[in-house]
């Protein structure tokens, strides 16, 4: 039986009609809403590629049933910034050339945003800990942590986010 699920994505209300209420949010974002920024890495809540914010909390959405986000606010990498108006994190990732294949970056940037929302001045160790749920197989870790530090400094200095 087709059911409707209403929630917001990047501030905009969406309504999706699905037969299977267990459909993972990741599949809804990618296949129903055409938001490809949130990546599939494992489907097992292990790699962090699919990290989004749900009511401000970073969550892996590859196994999160769509019914569980009804009425909630979802923010994806596309909701952070655009090439014209990059989020300070995105600008810092570009400045630091933080990434190789880049497949892990959407989830990592979203995780980093959640960290900086909570803790504007994280230490290197706190950044590492916050990102330990995200895997980067290419070994871009140090650049990524530098970029997060740089974005944190910029946000503290009042950069718009």
């Amino acid at each position, binding site marked *: 039986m087709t059911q409707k699920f209403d929630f917001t994505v990047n501030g905009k209300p969406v309504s999706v009609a699905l*037969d*299977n209420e*267990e*459909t*993972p949010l990741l*599949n809804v974002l*990618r*296949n129903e809403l*055409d*938001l*490809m*920024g*949130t*990546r*599939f*890495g*494992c*489907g*097992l809540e*292990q*790699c962090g*590629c699919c990290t989004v914010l749900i009511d401000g909390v970073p969550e892996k959405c590859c196994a999160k049933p769509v019914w569980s986000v009804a009425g909630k606010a979802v923010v*994806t*990498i*596309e909701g952070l*910034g*655009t*090439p014209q108006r*990059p989020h300070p994190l*995105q600008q810092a*990732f*570009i400045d630091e*050339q933080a*990434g*190789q*294949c*880049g*497949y*892990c*970056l*959407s989830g990592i*940037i979203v995780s980093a945003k959640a960290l900086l929302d909570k803790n504007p001045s994280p230490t290197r*160790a706190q*950044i*590492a*800990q916050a*990102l*330990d749920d*995200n*895997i*980067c*197989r*290419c*070994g*871009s*870790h*140090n*650049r*990524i*942590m530098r970029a997060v530090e740089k974005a944190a400094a910029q946000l503290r200095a009042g950069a718009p986010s």
Partner: protein
Amino acid sequence: MNAPVLPGPLKDNPSLARWVAFPAPGQVAINTGRVEIGQGVLTAMVQIAADELDVAMTRIAIRSGDTALTPNEGYTAGSQSIQFGGVAMRQACADVRALFLDQAAKVLACPVSELSIRDGSILRNGVTTGQDYWTLAGAVDLKANATGAGQRKPVAQLKSIGQSSARLDLPGKIFGQATFIHDMRLDGMLHARVVRQPNRGASIGAIDERAILRAAKAPVAFVRNGSFLAILGDDETAVDLAAVAADTHVKWQNVETPTAVQQEANWLLQRPAVDRIFGAEPADPKGRERFERTYTRGYLAHASISPSCGLAEFRDGHLTVWTHCQGVFPLRAALAKTLGLEASAITVHHVQGSGCYGHNGADDAAADAAIIAMQKPGVPVRVRWRRDEEFIYEPKTPAMIVKVHALLDDAGKPTDWTQEIWSPTHNQRPGAGGNLLGALALPNPPPEPPPNDVPESNGGGATRNAEPLYDIAAKRHIHHLVTETPIRTSALRGLGAMPNVFALECCIDELAERAGQDPVEYRLSITAYKRARAVIEKVAAMAGWKAGEPGGAGRGRGIAFARYKNRAAYAACVVELDVDEGVRLRHVWCATDAGLVINPDGVINQLEGGIIQSASWVLKEQVRFDNSVASGMASFDWETYPVLKFSEVPEIDIALINTKDEAPLGVGEITAGPTAAAIGNAVSHALGTRIRDLPLTRERIMASLLKE
């Protein structure tokens, strides 16, 4: 005068139109057979073309890895893209530039020597002429073959090459754009998952279709050809659910699974093998003392962050395939063979995937899509492997045993060195005689490929870096190419270089210790190679290396060096770490000589990646077998195959030296060996005892401490 020698890829693809085009006023298009796998090769190619054509980078669009468009450059592998592909691109652009200058000289009725080019405009004695690439393009025949007559720019005139350039592909990924093959959606496309044949020769016994359809909760269909079974539908979630259900509801016959004993390298001893000897014979009679050590490493997974993905469409007798594999032309040839099509009836396009680090499941996922598409003409098909499917079925890099036999002179220096290797093949790429996985499940599967490894002329597979570069009177290596293996093996970053360099550079430390010498001094005392000495001296200085620094007490430092393939780039690493029950990496310093560097920051990025990945292999990684698991593979997700995490990576400092005067060399694989061996040496320095088997797990460290 002899005709100039063309770089290999240009000789193979001589028509300049394959490399460069001027599609519209102000625009330049370049084509490369090399593909982006996260290493930044496309950005480097654009830098190269900008310099050799004298145009701004922003004018240049690059297309890559496309059987319909680009040069055929085989595989993007072996750290050769810049060494060969980049040099070919330079020469192609230099030839194009020369043709345009000749044409401009004709039009302007002046000698070429008065002409130059600035951002595509032709200048005469520094003054604009109204002519440019685009006004002249109609009169220049780019279908002409490259001659090598165009002068490549001398280093002093390079503007873009040698400057750090931001990666062109990174912003799209940072803003979450649909840049990956996984993000492609074609009109009318169906999602598919393959119900994997567990092993060659396994056949489908029974399928409980009803149970599978019920699990899907939405319509899905089956496609079957022999033992190749796939599930297809327009709802990806339903297809996934059905595929999971198929794990239980499809019964296979003739299933063989690997067993736990086979996961260890030592299992390779006494297996059938093809034996080969390379190098000096007989042993050096002056050597007196005999030194023998055995090092091992288990099977490793590429463990790409995203499972492989492929798309295909068969329409009007033509098959179009989209893939993130490393060689679109070899894949096309393999598909033609598998599907009984002419190569001309197949087009293969490269689309970026996640980092692959070698031969992962990419080719196979593309073949899966193609096999299904052939049965569904007119319907675009997208196959995306599941996470466990990638771990279980991607080709693994083989376990290896490396045994060093050396003879030493009175001063404790080696005079005769034999490196004896047991290893399955490092190359079962489809183009090298390996098979596409899906093909094994089809009726009349292709035969087992004959025993084969990467030839020495290409740097060897298991034998890569099997000879020390040091001044040793007699060197040889013995290769036991093990032909009976429990799983499919193929190329991973550096192939045999990591285990070989690990073994030999750890042995060098053991010899230094016997001789009572500092590891850095000892290495310098046995190598006269200037470029080798330079990276060793540089890295020692960077790390503030102090000769004779006492180890033990849990903190250790180690150094190691290699010249990749003994003929490519040089790298030396120093590692500092702490050991209690596990290893904690503190700092890695690395000095590299890769000759002319196109994009310094890009090179550093790749070196950092290589160091971290190698550290992950050494400290954490081994593919485990267990025949109580249905697939026989106990490593099937990120919990059963953990890799290095953010909180576990070391600080890294990298220096590039000698970046102008020598030919450019690739760097993607060069730190694999030196990092591994430097970690091994540092652990030994910290513990006062040596562990010779990888990975350096907590269990092994505890066992070695207990032994003390």
